């Protein structure tokens, strides 16, 4: 599918609390990014929680960490904070850059470990937890969640968001170095050729 990249081959450590076969938007995006980076010739090291009953088959070098289920969100687990383990892993196999896709305990641990080692780290703002709090009747927590998210993302070299609207919103809330990398569509699967014809 993807041609090899014309730019330098990078060693990229990707840290995510969710990954296929889990079904959600972040897992889907991470599946595409990780596979695509590999197809472009980059060396990908995936760090994620171990999923129940899985047999490792991602095809990439992986560090699987223990995870715990999220109450009220079946099928999703957050990774435990394993900063010391990540430091050891990265010291023995040094990545050029880290991409931290999620803001859970594993994401926080990864950012701390990367900073302690002087590794460049980019974060992804995939999930609007501060807005979800409203819908779950936890409005009072919204401000506190936002402060935590802002502190987390401002410790990274850049925060990637999918839209200009979200970039502007976060910038107004004090997030720095926010850049846009939008999302894609599987244009083989979702093609006009596959549309239903009136019959």
């Amino acid at each position, binding site marked *: 599918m993807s041609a090899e990249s014309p*730019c330098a081959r990078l060693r990229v450590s990707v840290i995510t609390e969710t990954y296929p076969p889990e079904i959600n938007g972040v897992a889907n995006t991470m599946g595409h990014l990780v596979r695509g980076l590999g197809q472009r010739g980059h060396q990908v090291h995936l760090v994620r929680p171990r999923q129940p009953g899985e047999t490792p088959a991602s095809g990439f070098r992986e560090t699987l960490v223990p995870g715990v289920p999220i109450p009220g969100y079946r099928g999703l687990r957050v990774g435990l904070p394993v900063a010391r383990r990540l430091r050891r892993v990265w010291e023995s196999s040094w990545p*050029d850059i880290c991409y931290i896709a999620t803001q859970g305990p594993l994401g926080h641990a990864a950012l701390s470990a990367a900073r302690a080692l002087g590794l460049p780290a980019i974060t992804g703002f995939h999930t609007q937890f501060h807005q979800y709090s409203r819908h779950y009747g936890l409005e009072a927590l919204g401000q506190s969640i936002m402060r935590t998210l802002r502190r987390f993302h401002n410790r990274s070299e850049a925060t990637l968001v999918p839209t200009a609207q979200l970039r502007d919103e976060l910038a107004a809330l004090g997030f720095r170095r926010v850049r*846009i*990398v939008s999302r*894609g569509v599987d*244009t083989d699967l979702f093609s006009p050729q596959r549309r239903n014809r009136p019959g």
Partner: protein
Amino acid sequence: MTAEGLSWERVLSAFEAELIAVLHDRNPAGGSEDAATAST
């Protein structure tokens, strides 16, 4: 928007460009090749 404009190929190129930009900011003199090998 065309199919190319929606594709993951375009997203990957943009993502790659951000990785390179951050590495370049950290090591402006090195360029992307050097940035990729600076840590070896």
